[in-house]
């Protein structure tokens, strides 16, 4: 670099350098590899259990258990963007200058310097030869332009002028994709909601953090069903959803995996399902006085056992508890005590000796289970930027692959009664294929002259 240039110039030079590009590629690759080798998303206690406190400390320090969201990984992505932007802005003016430069005149001496060149003789005079060449080139997709030669008649032809710009399209597309991702992560949200059949909900548990997101409308699940193939593997998961605004049905749609529902920019994806308890009728028998009381316990709602101040609720439900069939988890808080005690009560085995908590023997009369559907919920205003970037990227790479900027310089010199024609050519890349094209053109010209 020039000594006169100051620190700013040097910094720009460093940020635009290919060395930085290759370094960022390598660093991103190595970082990503680490992320695939270590399980992602584990909590710190889980890390301690897996790796022991020493290694877990290092993993946590570098954020390797949530690598793709760490500051240093994001910094690398930022560096990639800066490198891309600076190097593109640095090179674009040079490309434009190079593309707009045109020879005013041609000389035989200049053409002799090209490695891809050819010369042939023609019976036609230079001017006639030149217009015949122009016609042939026209049909080969090379629009041409006459220029004077220092002696004789010159011709310049080119095609694929926009090919050198494709690389900038690809670079820009990467920036657009990353911008879309950033926009989505700032303005959008991602979460999860479980809706029991027949119930309505408008709250979404955010995937990141522990917050709740309230939807501006509510969703009801009318039905959830699973279809199976004959040999037993699942074929289809589907939920019949209804969107409600102020209690009024505004939209009704069945969703499946691969077939989500979008309303007001918020999309609901079929993600999981499960079974939960709706309510259970339970009999409590006080062993001390033999008195029995039956109560209906809706899932996770506290009730008092009649005639006492003892509070009970069903907090868990298992469809098959350790192969003993369905079981409900009941929590009991005796009057005046701070601690509650709980136990699993087997639904189908009323005589099981463990069906008791403290002084109560417990029997489940009826347990009404229902299915819930698990929905992934997402709002992502950046996704169209991402898709736009994708499209531009494919166009750019595709056109960069299939085309190159090809230029021909041709000079027809008087020679005896006819003329001597010198042809020279150059392509912005893939010189071997261009040589073939060039040779083909020369053969055609030979026949025409």
């Amino acid at each position: 670099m020039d000594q006169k240039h100051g620190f700013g110039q040097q910094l720009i030079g460093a940020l635009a350098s290919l060395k930085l590009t290759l370094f960022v590629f390598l660093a991103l690759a190595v970082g990503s590899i680490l992320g695939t080798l270590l399980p992602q998303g584990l909590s710190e206690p889980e890390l301690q259990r897996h790796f022991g406190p020493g290694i877990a400390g290092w993993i946590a320090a570098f954020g390797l258990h949530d690598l793709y969201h760490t500051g240093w990984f994001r910094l690398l992505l930022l560096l990639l963007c800066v490198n891309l932007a600076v190097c593109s802005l640095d090179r674009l003016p040079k490309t434009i200058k190079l593309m707009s430069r045109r020879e005013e005149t041609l000389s035989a001496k200049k053409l002799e310097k090209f490695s891809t060149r050819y010369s042939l003789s023609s019976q036609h005079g230079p001017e006639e030869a030149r217009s015949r060449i122009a016609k042939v080139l026209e049909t080969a997709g090379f629009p041409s332009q006459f220029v004077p030669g220092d002696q004789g008649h010159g011709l310049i032809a080119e095609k694929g002028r926009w090919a050198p710009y494709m690389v900038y399209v690809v670079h820009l597309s990467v920036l657009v994709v990353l911008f879309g991702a950033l926009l989505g992560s700032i303005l959008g949200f991602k979460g999860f909601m479980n809706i029991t059949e027949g119930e309505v909900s408008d709250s979404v548990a955010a995937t990141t953090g522990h917050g709740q997101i309230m939807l501006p409308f509510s969703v009801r699940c009318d039905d959830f069903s699973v279809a199976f193939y004959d040999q037993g593997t699942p074929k289809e998961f589907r939920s019949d959803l209804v969107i409600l605004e102020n209690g009024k049905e505004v939209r009704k749609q069945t969703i499946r995996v691969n077939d989500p529902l979008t309303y007001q920019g918020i999309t609901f994806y079929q993600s999981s399902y499960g079974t939960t308890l709706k309510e259970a009728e339970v009999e409590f028998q006080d062993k001390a006085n033999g008195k029995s009381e039956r109560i209906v316990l809706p899932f996770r709602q506290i009730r008092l056992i009649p005639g006492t101040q003892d509070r009970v609720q069903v907090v868990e439900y298992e469809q098959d508890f350790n192969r003993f069939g369905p079981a409900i988890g009941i929590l009991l808080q005796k009057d005046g005590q701070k601690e509650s005690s709980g136990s699993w009560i087997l639904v189908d085995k009323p005589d099981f000796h463990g069906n008791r908590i403290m002084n109560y023997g417990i029997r489940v009369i009826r347990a009404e289970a229902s299915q819930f559907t698990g929905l992934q919920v997402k709002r992502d205003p950046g996704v169209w930027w991402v898709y736009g970037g994708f499209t531009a990227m494919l166009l750019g790479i595709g056109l960069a692959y299939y085309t190159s900027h090809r230029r021909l310089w041709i000079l027809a010199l008087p020679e005896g009664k006819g003329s001597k024609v010198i042809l020279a050519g150059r392509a912005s890349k893939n010189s071997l294929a261009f040589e073939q094209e060039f040779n083909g053109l020369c053969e055609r010209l030979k026949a025409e002259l």
Partner: protein
Amino acid sequence: MVTSSLLLSITTFTFLACSVLYMAGGVFRQKQLFFVGSMVASGSLILQTAGILLRWKESYDLGYGHAPLSNLYESLVFAAWAIMLIYLVLEYRTKQRSLGIFPCLITFLAMAYASFSTNVDAKIQPLLPALKSNWLIAHVVTCFIGYAAFAVAAGLSLLYLAKGKAMGSSNTGPASGFVPEPRQLDELNHQMVLFGFLWLSVGIITGSVWANSAWGTYWSWDPKETWSLITWLVYAAVLHARTMQGWRGNRVAWMSLLGFACVIFTYFGVNFLLTGLHSYATK
């Protein structure tokens, strides 16, 4: 009765015959052997195409009705098909039959692995709900065209390195003079890498758009996604080093091989060693 598994088993052996013919042609410097190899390869490709189409039809007869691109067996068969197709087009365009040694070998290995490994289940299975989408065909086909181009590029790189070695030791090594000039091999390698890069990009993007329409995330750093990005970065580095830094020859050949190693790991390593969204591809 002709079944798809019969046809595909036959192609496994005819691809073995191709590999032997091409290799013998290279070792004994017999152009006729190359010619026969090329004919057998073309015939095998037609037979394999029929096998794949028949398998597609059979899945409809079983009542499942999906394209044969849904598990490891089917993807291996398709990978072999794509490598062979791309190679034969390359051979036709360059008229250089000696390029076929490594692509044929890779094709045979893919088919042999699909047919004989106990890890690979050749049965036609019903489609999981997550895979029921038209994106399946777009995603798998584009990815595997990319992988196949990288496989052919890796074959060209091996040939380049082998030729360089042969020329280094003596001018009359077994392969020298019979394979294209190093400069042409280098150029073809670059062409193949660029072609593969384009299709890998399409493959990653179709996968991304599909994931967004099925799960609502276009990128979730799942190991398969991440490794395909790593592969993409390696090949992007190859292209930049060649275009901007003027790298040629051995260095580009080695980088192309490194890229192909990443492809192999993305394809197999991720399935067997890591877990993630693509776990159905292990059977």
